[in-house]
């Protein structure tokens, strides 16, 4: 046993060129696998991200019934008491929100919009619209009745920075309320729909407009990395004072997104199957080639009285060593390559004309998940093992004379 192990280890370094070819096969397989999985995770993460990081966060606390029939009569009545409770929950940022449908108009045109009253300081921690400002700022100046609108809406209404728009909505008392707002900031996100429909104003302006006292429509909550969604929902349920509200996660808020993620995931699975097939084939092919190169060597060993069984065992050990070295190198390299993009992001807009033309900057942050890594390694190691079974069997079954004469 010990001798076989030793011989196997020495065999690897006896012909380093050949071994390195095999090791690199495994390394490339590992990098290819980790690359594919981490990028797809990154893509899915982006999909979810754009759904929750532009609006509403991971979790929202909304009035009971608001999810099925949103209307301004439904509101959270003691937001300060809730805010106190929320401050005690670890791992979250939260921001108040007043939201209602209305109309935005300039002297030239008008359009239906969703008007959102926010607290700029807190909203920054929950959503990322503040990072998408392309002109002006995100409520930094002291301008009264300030509004931040999307680029698309600005074009539709033909208003520029500093100009006025009129916002109209039906108020709590069923009358039509309206107010003049000055455009202080213009944002551009990846979604033109969003840029056309969403208008942001200060929380107190929004409350004043539709006749709320200190009530709000919802709390948007952002979950910090490393905190579990369901656990946080449970914690919120324990911490918040009882009342007519509902805790809604982004999954419940975007059922269609969740479904398309599932469909996406299914196709990812198909593609991973393809990658795994490619990896398996590559490994089998390379190991077959190498073992056939060495048939003569096995003949010599057999001529000296080494049992076929031990030759097989030696080959298994060699393969195991090669795969382990290959996987280790592969993982280290993967972490170096994809880890870099994970931190800095890979900007894909440069690679595609279409994206550039549409003005989307798509930065992907590949995600290496431990579970993906373990599954991949398990698959690769066991595949290599299976791959070497047949050639090893073949090699040990040669007749000594045939083996010695094998070209």
């Amino acid at each position, binding site marked *: 046993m010990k001798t076989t192990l030793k011989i196997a280890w020495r065999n690897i370094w006896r012909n380093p060129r050949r071994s390195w070819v095999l090791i690199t096969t495994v390394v490339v397989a590992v990098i*290819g696998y980790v690359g594919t999985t981490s990028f797809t995770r990154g893509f899915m993460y982006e999909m979810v991200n754009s759904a929750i990081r532009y609006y509403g966060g991971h979790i929202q606390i909304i009035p009971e019934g608001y999810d099925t029939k949103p209307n301004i009569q439904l509101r959270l009545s003691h937001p300060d008491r809730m805010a106190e409770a929320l401050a005690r929950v670890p791992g979250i940022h939260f921001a108040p929100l007043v939201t209602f449908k209305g109309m935005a108009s300039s002297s030239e045109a008008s359009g239906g919009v969703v008007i959102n009253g926010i607290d700029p300081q807190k909203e920054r921690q929950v959503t990322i619209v503040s990072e998408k400002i392309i002109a002006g700022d995100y409520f930094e100046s002291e301008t009264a009745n300030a509004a931040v609108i999307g680029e698309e809406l600005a074009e539709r209404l033909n208003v520029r920075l500093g100009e006025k728009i009129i916002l109209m909505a039906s108020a709590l008392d069923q009358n039509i309320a309206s107010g003049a707002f000055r455009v202080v900031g213009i944002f551009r996100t990846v979604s033109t729909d969003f840029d056309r429909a969403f208008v942001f104003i200060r929380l107190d302006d929004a409350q004043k407009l539709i006749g709320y006292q200190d009530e709000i429509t919802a709390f948007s909550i952002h979950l910090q990395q490393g905190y579990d969604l369901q656990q946080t929902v449970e914690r919120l349920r324990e911490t918040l004072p009882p009342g007519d509200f509902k805790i809604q996660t982004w999954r419940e808020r975007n059922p269609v997104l969740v479904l398309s993620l599932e469909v996406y995931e299914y196709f990812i699975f198909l593609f991973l199957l393809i990658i795994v097939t*490619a990896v398996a084939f590559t490994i089998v092919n390379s190991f077959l080639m190498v073992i056939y190169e060495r048939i003569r060597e096995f003949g010599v060993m057999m001529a000296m009285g080494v049992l076929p069984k031990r030759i097989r065992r030696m080959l298994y050990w060699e393969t195991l060593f090669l795969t382990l070295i290959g996987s280790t190198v592969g993982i280290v390299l993967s972490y170096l390559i994809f880890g870099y993009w994970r931190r800095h992001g890979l900007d894909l807009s440069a690679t595609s004309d279409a994206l550039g033309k549409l003005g*989307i900057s798509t930065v992907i942050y590949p995600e290496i998940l431990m579970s993906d890594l373990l599954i991949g390694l398990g698959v690769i190691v066991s595949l290599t093992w299976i791959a070497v079974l047949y050639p090893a069997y073949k090699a040990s079954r040669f007749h000594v004379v045939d083996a010695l004469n094998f*070209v």
Partner: protein
Amino acid sequence: MKKFVKIAWRNIWRNRRRSLITMTAIMFAILITGVTRSLQYGTYDTLESYAVRLMTGEMQLQKKGFFEHQTLAYSFPENLYPWDRLMDEYDFVEAYARRITSYGLVGSATTSAGAMIIGVEPGREKQVTYFMTQLAAGETLDDGDDRRVLLGKGLADNLNVTPGDTVVVLTQGFRNQLGADMYVVKGLIRSGNQELDRALMVMPLHNAQDLFSLYGRITQIVLATRDFRRTEDYASRMHIAMDGEELRVLPWQTLMPELLQLIALDNISGAIFLLFLLLIVGFEIMNTTLMAIMERIKEFGILQSLGVKPRQISLMLLLETGMKISLAVSTGLLLTFLFIQLIKDYPIPLSSELKKAMEAWGFYTDFYFTDRVRVFIEPLVAISVIAVLSVIYPIWTASRLRPVDALRKGQL
């Protein structure tokens, strides 16, 4: 020269096993990238044509200004042109339907809501789009129907109505006349697009013309074409003008810019995946070709000591690998072609839970592998390039050997 061709050909079959291993590497690479592309393009085609043909249609004819302003001032006479002739004049037009799109207020006994009102010719509309057949309840509209409407499921829920109930519609018509009428709900639509389902109301075209005082006029002609990917080209070839009125031909790419963004994103994720796949299979090709030549160093040493010139050795290897690559690539393409022909008529199996979930949202559709030409061209080019690149280095080294080293070491 002829002699070298012969030697090269014999070399391939002299060590059949080695040649087969390198060749299967190439064949497999072609097959797997081909199948991947087929799957990718197949799903994109399905999703995109589905999104395009749901409601927007592949192309629309509109009066200039309608797309930007969406008001009835930009309507045009419904017989502006003998539309039936479109199919004869442009071979890519497969069907057309007249349509009116406008807005109004829909009320039930309890409440009211804003709606997008679409007047359609039911029979024709079903040839160009399929939102009318995506029903959650009731029945769809037929050609003889009068004063019957379909409502989006979300809108119907908001109004608290079900098929058989009556709704009242209030609108502002063509020349600002007020329009009001009552209709019976015939069915509910679940298109898969929630926004749409919360706003949609569909009625027969003649009812819409009455409601909007739009007598003899329409706002759009919706066209179905032969290939939805070539509509931009089609649009540039179409020109409809009559009686001093000119219509714009708008392909879906103009009508649905958001879809283009999604497609671009899809293509990129597909390309990234392909890149990793090529990395794996390309490396395998490189490995096996490298090994297959390096194994033979001793042989080259013997040839050299027999007086064969290095240049001749490289020529022999070039011919040999050239033949091997072409043979493998063509077999690979043939295999890919056969494989795709075999599976392209069967939908890609989805798990039954996924199917149910999709059906519940109204957008269940089957995905298919596609046999578009690109599916074969792309792997052909990519793999050939990789294969050719991977033989350059070993051939170059083999031609620069010193016979003594080659004979003694048998390797580099």
